[in-house]
C-alpha cells in the first residue's frame, strides 16, 4: 500500500519534476557549459576556459550594469520594506471599512505589468505627467524623471514602491501573529504606542522583515522589465540593469558564451549576498521558538 502510494505520488508529481529537470536544470547545466565557451549563435562553440569570466573584469558595461543594479537594490528594497511595513501596520488597526482599504492597497499589485508601465510613463512625463504637474502647482522645480541620467534610477525606485502589495500582505500576516499578551504586558507597565512598537512589534516581526529582505534583494537584482520597456537601458546607460545587459548580449549580439558567464556570475553574486545576509541575520533576527527547534 505504501509503495503504491509512493509510486502514484511520484507519477503525479512527474510533470513538475520533468518540467524542473528539462526547463530549469537542463538549461542551467547547458549555460554552465557554454559559459566556458566562445559561442555565437550559428557558429559552433569553442572551449575558451575562463576567458569569458576574465573578460568581465575589463568590461566597462559589466561594472556599470552591476553598480546600476546595486544602486537600484539599495534604493528599492529598504523603501519597499518601510512603505509596506507602515501600510501593513495601518491596515492592522481596527478601522471602519478595513476590507476595502486592504483591497485598495493591494490593488496595484494586480495591475498587469504592461498597464503599470504605461501608467508610470505617463506619470513621469516631463511635460504633462502627474508628478511634474503636482510639483509645478506646488511651485517646486520639475524633474526630467526617467529622461535624465541622474534621476532615471531614482524614478524607477519610486515606481517600485507602487507594487508593494505582496510584501504588505506578508507583513500583515506577520503582524497578526504577534501575541497579544505581549502588548498587554507593555500596557500594564505603562508603555505607549511607541514602546509597543519598539519593544514588541519590531522584534517579533524580524523574521518576517528578514524574509521580505531576502526575497526583495534576490528579486531586485534581477530587475529587467523597466529597462526593457521604458528606457532601453538609457539615457546614456543610466538604467543599464544587469539582466537587461545580459539579455542584450545574448539576443541582440548573440554572444551566448559571454551571456552565460554573465548569468552565472549574477547567480554567484546573489548567492554570496544571500549567504552574508543569513550570517548577519543571527545578530538581529529573533525567533521566539528558536530554543524549541
Amino acid at each position: 500500500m505504501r509503495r503504491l502510494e509512493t509510486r502514484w505520488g511520484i507519477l503525479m508529481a512527474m510533470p513538475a519534476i520533468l518540467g524542473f529537470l528539462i526547463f530549469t536544470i537542463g538549461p542551467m547545466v547547458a549555460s554552465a557549459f557554454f559559459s566556458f565557451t566562445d559561442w555565437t549563435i550559428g557558429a559552433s562553440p569553442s572551449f575558451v576556459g575562463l576567458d569569458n569570466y576574465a573578460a568581465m573584469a575589463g568590461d566597462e558595461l559589466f561594472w556599470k550594469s552591476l553598480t546600476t543594479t546595486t544602486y537600484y537594490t539599495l534604493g528599492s528594497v529598504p523603501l519597499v520594506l518601510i512603505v509596506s511595513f507602515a501600510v501593513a501596520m495601518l491596515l492592522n488597526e481596527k478601522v471602519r471599512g478595513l476590507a476595502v482599504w486592504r483591497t485598495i492597497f493591494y490593488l496595484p499589485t494586480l495591475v498587469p505589468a504592461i498597464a503599470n508601465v504605461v501608467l508610470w510613463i505617463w506619470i513621469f512625463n516631463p511635460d504633462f505627467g502627474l508628478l511634474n504637474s503636482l510639483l509645478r502647482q506646488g511651485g517646486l522645480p520639475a524633474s526630467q524623471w526617467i529622461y535624465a541620467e541622474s534621476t532615471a534610477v531614482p524614478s524607477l525606485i519610486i515606481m517600485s514602491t507602487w507594487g508593494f502589495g505582496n510584501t504588505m500582505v506578508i507583513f500583515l500576516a506577520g503582524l497578526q501573529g504577534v501575541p497579544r499578551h505581549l502588548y498587554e504586558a507593555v500596557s500594564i507597565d505603562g508603555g505607549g504606542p511607541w514602546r509597543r512598537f519598539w519593544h514588541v512589534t519590531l522584534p517579533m516581526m524580524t523574521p518576517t522583515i528578514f524574509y521580505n529582505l531576502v526575497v526583495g534583494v534576490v528579486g531586485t537584482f534581477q530587475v529587467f522589465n523597466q529597462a526593457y520597456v521604458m528606457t532601453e537601458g538609457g539615457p546614456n546607460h543610466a538604467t543599464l540593469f544587469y539582466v537587461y545587459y545580459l539579455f542584450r548580449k545574448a539576443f541582440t549580439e548573440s554572444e551566448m558564451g559571454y551571456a552565460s558567464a554573465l548569468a552565472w556570475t549574477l547567480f554567484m553574486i546573489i548567492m554570496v549576498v544571500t549567504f552574508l545576509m543569513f550570517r548577519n541575520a543571527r545578530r538581529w533576527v529573533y525567533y521566539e521558538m528558536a530554543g524549541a527547534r
Partner: protein
Amino acid sequence: MKRRDLLKLGGLAALGTAAAACGSGGGSAPAGSTQLQFMFWGSTFEKKAVESMLKQYEQKNPGVTVKPLFTPDEYDVKLNTLVASNKLPDAGYVPMSMSFRLGEQGKLVNLFPYLQKYPQLAGYLPEAYLWSGPDKLHGIATANESMMVWFSKSAVAAAGVTPPADAASAWTWDQFVENAYKLTLDQSGKRPDESGFDPKQIKQFGISSSITYGAAWYGFLRSNGGDIADESGKKCTLDSPEAIEVFQNLQDLIYKHRVAPGPGQLAATGDEVPGTNILLKTKRVAMVVDGHWSLLDMNESKVDYGIGVLPKYQEPFTATQVAGASAVFAGSKHEQEAVELFAFHNDPRYVDLFKQGLWMPQEKKYYEDQAAIDSWTKNAEHPPEFRTAVVDYTRQHGVPDFRNRVKNMSAIASDVLTPALQELETGKRPAAEILKEAAPKITSMLQGWHHTQDV
C-alpha cells in the same frame, strides 16, 4: 507607448510558447508538392500585403505552397532560436546587422551565382546589395527607404513658410533654423525670439529631428562633409569639426533655439514619440524629419501634410536604404524555388505596399523609367511633390545608411553610440566634449566597412 512596446511585453510572455510552437512547422506538405516557408515581421497592414503576395506567388507557381511565418515581435530572438536549432525557414526578412553575421556564417544562400539566371536580381540599386565578402551576396535590403521633411500644410501656411520640395532649392541649415523659429509657438502664441516666450509651455514645436536615430542625422553629417568613420572604416570620425558642428546644431535646436522638443517632451506614453502623422495632425510639431514609410500612416489618418527635402550644409544628402534585409536561408530543400520567391517578394508588380506608400522599390527602373515611376507613384496616395522630394531626391542625393555599411554596428550602437547621443540629447554637455570622448571608444570597436562591389 508604441505598438512595438506593447508587442515587446506580449513577446516576453509568448516567448516560451513561440519557441515551442516553431518546431511544429513544415513537413506537412502533401506528396509531390513543394512547401516553402516565408518568415517576416511588420504591422498587421504589412502582414496582409505580404500574405497576398504569397498567394499570388502560389497562383503563378502551381505545385508550390508557401506558409507565411508572421513574427511581429522578438524577431531576432526567434530567428536566433531557429538558427541554433537548425530549423530555418526557406526565405524571409532578416534584421540588417544579423544578416551580415548569418551571411558570414554561411547560414544564408549566396545569391551571387543566381544573378545571371534571374536578371531581375541584377537590376537593383547598387546600395541595395548586401555583401558579406567578395562575390558573397547574402541578401538585399527588402525595400528602399529614405528620409525627408514632413510638414503640416496649415501650420506652414499660417507662418508663411514653404519648405522646398526639390534638392536644388534645399534650405541651408541657417534658413532651416530661421523657419523653425517662425513655426514655434508657446501657449500665448509667442515665438522663441519674442520677449515673454515661455519655453515650458510650448504649443507647437517648429521641428522634430531625432538625435538618437542614425538615419535622421546621417544625411546632415554627410552633407557637411563628415562621416562616421574614415575610409578604412577603422577610425571613428565623429569627433571631426564637421561632425561636431552637425550634432551641436541638433542640440542647439532644443536648448539654444528652443524650436525642437527635448527628450520625453513629445512622448505621449512611451520613450518614443507618437507617429509623425499624429504630431502633424495635432500640430504638436510643424515639421518632422522622418522616413518615406510615414506616407502610409499619413494617408490612413488623413493628415493635411506636405513633403520637403532635408536642409543641407554643402551638397544635399539624405540617408537611403533605411530598412531590414531579405535573404534565402541556407539548407532549404528547395533552394531554387526559394530564390524565385525571393525575387518575387518585393516586386512592385505583386506587392501593394509600394502603391500604398510603405515601401520604395529597389529596382533601378522604378526611379529612371517614366512608365515604371508612374506605376507606383501616380495615385492618390502619392502627393504631386513626391517625384522631386522623394523619387529624384533619393536616387540623386541618397547615401546608404551607415548602419548597413559599418561592421559590428549593432554592438557599437548599443554600447557606445546611442548612449552618447542620449547624453547629447539631454543637453548637459556640448557635442564636442561628448563626441571626443565617444570617438576613441567607437574606434576600438570598429572592424571596417562591409564589402561592396558592382554586380
